[in-house]
Every structure is written in C-alpha cells, then in structure tokens.
C-alpha cells in the first residue's frame, strides 16, 4: 500500500505577507483569549495549600507526582477548568489527562491533595466518568493517584447519590476490568469512606507507607454518638475524645498489606510508588509504533503558527478550512474522499505520526452556483446540505470498515432548514449520520474550531450524540450554543415585538430583552464557559492542536480492539478509483 500512503496528495499553500498583515488583529484577539484561559488554568492549579506547605509535610503535590510519573513532554491535560457546579474551590478536585508512562499511553487522574486533602467535591464524579469513558474508548490503562479524604460533607447532597453520583466510578472501574482494561492505583495519605473505595476499586494497588484506606475514617469511628442534635457538653465530649485518640487510623499498611494483602506493594518513598506504577506500565500491552504506521512520520509542510492568521476570531468571517488542516497533518498530505460532491465538508484520509486517520471538517464560504441543487438559494459553507450529509455518512462508514480513527473539525451553523431542505431529507440524513457513527465503533476526537451550533454540533461527532467521542477540544475561537444569540432573540421575541407594536406600546422593553439575551448567549458560549461546563474537555492553544491529535492517534493505535490490514482497506481504493 506504499503508493497510497507514503506520499499522499500535497495541499495548502504558504501564507503571503498580506494575509498575515490582514489577520494581525484577529490573531491578537485569539492570543488574548488564550492568555485568559492560561490565567484561569494557573488559578486552578494554585487552588488550596501552596506547594511548599504540602512539601513541608513531607508530601508531594498531585502535580509533582504527575510530573514525576508521566514521560517528559507527553502530558495532555483535560478538564482543567471543568467545574460545572461552580465550586468555590474552582475545580472538581481531580486532575486528569492523557500522558505516556514508560512510552505507553494512559489516562492519568489524581486527587488534588492541596485542596481539602483531595476531597470529593460536586461535579467530580462527572469528571471521573469522563476519564473512565476515555480509557474505555481508547482501550488504554487508567492510572490513579489516589489521595482522597472522602466527601466534602457540607455539600454531600450535590454529589453523594444519584445515577451518576460519586459512587459511580467504582462500578466503572469494574466495567473497565471486565473489558480487559487495567486500572492502576498509587495510593497516598488518608483515604476513608469514598476515598477507601477509590483505593480498593482499581486492579493493582501500590501504597505509600503512610497510606491507609478504610470503610470509615477516624472521625466516624471515634465520634459517633447520635442524640438528635448537639449542645456544648456534647461538643466538649467530642473534643476530649478526639484529643484522646492515639490509635492508628483504620486500614493502614499494617492491615491492608500485611493482613489483607490488598496493597500489592508498599513503598517507603513517595517516588517509590510512582516507580512502581512505571514498572507496571512497562508490563502493559502496547503495539510498537511501527506496527500501525503506514508511512514515516512527517511534520506538516507549513508552520503551525499560521493558524493564528488563518482562523478568524470573527465568527462571521469566511476562511479556508483546508489551509487549517494543512498545518496539522503529516506532510500537509491527504487523500480526499469525493472532492466533487458535498462541497460544504472535507472528508479524507490523512496521517498523524505516520498513522492513518479519517478527517472531516466544515468548509466555509460560498459553495458555487447551483448548490445545493434542491433549493433556489445559495449554499454557504458551515451549513450542512443533503450531499454533505450523505458524504459524511459514507465516509464514516468506510472508516469504520477500515478501522480508522476519526478526527472531526467543527465550524458549523447547523443543518439547512425549510421545506425544500425537509424534502431533501436532511432530517433523516442527520440522524442517519448519528447511526453511521455509532456503528463504526472507532475512536473519534473533535475539535470545535469555531462554531458548534444546532443539531450539526451533535451529528458531526459531537460528544452529546455518540459514544465514540473520546474527547472534544475547544480553541480560542470556540462558540457552542443551540443557535446564535441574535437568532435566538428573534425566535424568542419576534411575536411579542409584533404584539407590542400592534398595541401601540413602546418597543424598548422588548428590545432590551432581546439585547440581554444576545449578551447572555455570548457569555455562555465562549471558550472558558464551554470548558467549565464540559461542553469541551479542554480549551487548547492553536499551537497545541497537533500535539493533541498525536496523543489521540497514538493512544487509539496503542492497543486497538480490532484491526484492518492496510492491504484490505477499501477507502483508499474508493478514493483513488
């Protein structure tokens, strides 16, 4: 298959000075958003006790543990700003992402021991489920750094119970194990109650010498005397009991290594635990990179910094998606699928580090005379029409057949609307795409380059409407909402405006409401909001996009659950004819 993959069709062109000059203000705007995101990330990382204070107690912070554990330069954080219930701590209290340990990809997640000794906080279980889903979708190990003091008790009603509550990760660990995906745990500190189950539910438990895990901690064991309320005498009694307690916390290494044997190993040093995790990672199944490389890895032919000139911050400005893609894929090469059909979307096979991936993205701008053929209005990229939907259905189906992971790039204002579009079956074809994606059973990732709007955000590999989306990235230009704020204001208030007008009343109150709605949509669709709410799994700098594509493809090809030999692939033959 060398003729297909070694050198594919080159595309893209070098930026001219005029384009760079014209895009300068937009590039500044994008970098300003990135700087704001970076500040927010720093605030999350600095939450809780300062690192020095943790170190003075003889402990490493979760960030120091990650730094020691993960191979240099391979950490790809996810969910950094995720805080859907707006905790005052500014985070859900777990730190997670994709990283390599001893050359093997893993989903790594740890409790932030700087904040309430790694307590469960509202929204944390959803964060953890994203990590377990990621490990399941990519079929790679899940590695835990457990250091969890249990629930933040004053807010337990927000996360303890419910179908996706704080206990859900325990059975998710069981599900991963059933699927043959190991869960490793390095265990530190005091882990009572929820922390105890966080510790016991993984597959291999490696403990620090001072670690413990238990069904209940010292607070409960020594202090339970329910009498329906508290008074001064009772609290003084509690204080006396607490002060008098000199015993070991339940479930320390003397119990769970020496007696139960739950802890596989115990280490004197904190770094020893991490070295143990590395040793276990070396024993994990993983294909060597050459196994799935269809060609030698190549850098893109154009600098990635060009993206700041190519992706307009202005959501209304048209740009050339192909030029964006040319900055992200190996050699700026591709095999395009059906270039003469469905011009509003690019579909094609590209390479990332020499491994084949299917790429799909919205093309922007005027689509030419006579398109879409079913309507008398002009077609504009970003919107999806009959042909584009059919093309994506075909392409993902063939990717599934050839076992190619898929990378989606969204900048979409929605699927075409109106009676003519309905007659052109766009409703059925959109849902058909969801069906086509589901049946592929290949890992996918999504980059919301700019707009993710309406049902098109769902059907184009969006995390809402399929199980194969491993993770979704936002950029500094990302904007996710059901429709643009101005459209929503019209839909909400047009009738009321007409009524007020007919009654001879002032339109000012309606206009104020419309502008308020536009402003609200703006605030709740921007990158930082999308990251906090989990609409995207991380907002990354444009210059980081290729790194995340490399992490995704590397992880997807590390230990795939099914394989299509390259010489059996159909898609390249369909493309070349």
């Amino acid at each position: 298959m060398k003729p297909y993959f070694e050198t594919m069709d080159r595309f893209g062109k070098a930026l001219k000075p005029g384009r760079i000059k014209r895009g300068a203000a937009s590039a500044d705007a994008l970098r300003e958003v990135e700087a704001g995101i970076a500040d927010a990330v720093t605030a999350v990382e600095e939450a809780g006790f300062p690192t020095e204070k943790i170190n003075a107690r003889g402990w490493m912070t979760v960030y120091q543990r990650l730094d020691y554990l993960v191979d240099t330069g391979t950490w790809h954080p996810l969910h950094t700003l995720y805080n859907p219930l707006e905790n005052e701590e500014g985070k859900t209290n777990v730190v997670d992402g994709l990283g390599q340990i001893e050359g093997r990809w893993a989903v790594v997640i740890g409790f932030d021991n700087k904040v309430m000794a790694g307590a469960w906080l509202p929204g944390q279980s959803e964060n953890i489920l994203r990590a377990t889903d990621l490990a399941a979708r990519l079929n790679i190990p899940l590695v835990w750094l457990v250091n969890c003091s249990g629930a933040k008790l004053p807010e337990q009603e927000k996360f303890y119970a419910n179908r996706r509550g704080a206990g859900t990760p325990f059975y998710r660990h069981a599900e991963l194990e059933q699927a043959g995906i190991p869960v490793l745990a390095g265990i530190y500190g005091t882990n009572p109650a929820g922390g105890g189950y966080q510790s016991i539910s993984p597959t291999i438990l490696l403990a620090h010498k001072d670690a413990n895990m238990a069904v209940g901690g010292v607070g409960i064991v020594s202090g339970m005397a329910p009498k329906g309320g508290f008074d001064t005498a009772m609290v003084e009694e509690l204080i006396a009991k607490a002060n008098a307690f000199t015993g070991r916390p339940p479930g320390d290494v003397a119990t769970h290594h020496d007696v139960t044997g739950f802890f596989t190993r115990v280490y004197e040093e904190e770094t020893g635990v991490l070295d143990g995790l590395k040793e276990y990672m070396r024993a994990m199944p993983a294909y060597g990179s050459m196994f799935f490389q269809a060609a030698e890895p190549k850098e893109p032919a154009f600098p990635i910094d060009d993206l700041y000139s190519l992706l307009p911050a202005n959501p209304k400005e048209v740009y050339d998606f192909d030029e964006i893609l040319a900055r992200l894929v190996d050699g700026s090469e591709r095999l395009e699928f059906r270039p003469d059909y469905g011009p509003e979307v690019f579909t094609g096979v590209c390479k990332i580090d020499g491994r084949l991936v299917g790429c799909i993205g919205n093309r922007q701008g005027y689509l030419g005379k006579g398109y879409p053929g079913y309507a008398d209005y002009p077609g504009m990229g970003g919107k999806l029409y009959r042909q584009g939907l059919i093309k994506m259905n075909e392409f993902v189906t063939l990717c599934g057949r050839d076992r190619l992971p898929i990378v989606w790039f969204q900048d979409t204002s929605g699927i075409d609307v109106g009676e003519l579009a309905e007659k052109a079956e766009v409703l059925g074809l959109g849902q058909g795409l969801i069906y086509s994606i589901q049946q592929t059973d290949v890992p996918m990732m999504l980059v919301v380059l700019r707009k993710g709007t309406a049902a098109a955000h769902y059907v184009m590999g969006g995390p809402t409407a399929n199980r194969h989306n491993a993770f979704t990235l936002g950029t500094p230009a990302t904007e996710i909402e059901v429709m643009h704020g101005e459209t929503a204001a019209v839909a909400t208030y047009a009738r009321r405006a007409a009524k007020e007008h007919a009654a001879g009343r002032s339109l000012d109150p309606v206009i104020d409401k419309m502008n308020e709605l536009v402003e609200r949509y703006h605030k709740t669709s921007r990158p930082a909001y999308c990251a906090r709410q989990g609409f995207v799994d991380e907002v990354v700098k444009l210059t980081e996009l290729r790194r995340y594509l490399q992490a995704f493809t590397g992880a997807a090809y590390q230990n795939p659950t099914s394989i299509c030999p390259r010489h059996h692939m159909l898609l390249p033959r369909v493309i070349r004819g």
Partner: protein
Amino acid sequence: MAEEVLAPLAGKVLSVAVAVGDAVEEDDELLVLEAMKMETVVYAPADGTVGSITAQVGQQVEEDDPLMTLD
C-alpha cells in the same frame, strides 16, 4: 493590462479596504462582502495597483459583477 476583480458571490459590500492608486500585493484584502450572515473577504489575486473601484459600501452586487480593477 488591467485585471478585473469580480464578485465571487452575490452579497452586500460591507467595506472597501483600498483606494484608487493603492499598491497591493497578492492576498491583500480588497473588500468584504456580506451574504447569508457571513463575511467573505475578497483578496487581491495578484500584485498590482488599484486602477478603479466600482463597488460601493452598502451596494448589493451579483455574482461575477465587477468590483474593481488592478493595473
């Protein structure tokens, strides 16, 4: 010889970035057209000097209408 710059699509002229006599390089912005809620930048197809401008801000143009010439 003057090169005509034509409207790539029907739309409203939102802004004109050059004036007659301006020297432009290939890929410099000439004007912006608005259509279907989107803004399409028309770039200089080659290096040259703006010879004449027929497009007016706010004007509705049809596809292939002349917008300006480059000498």
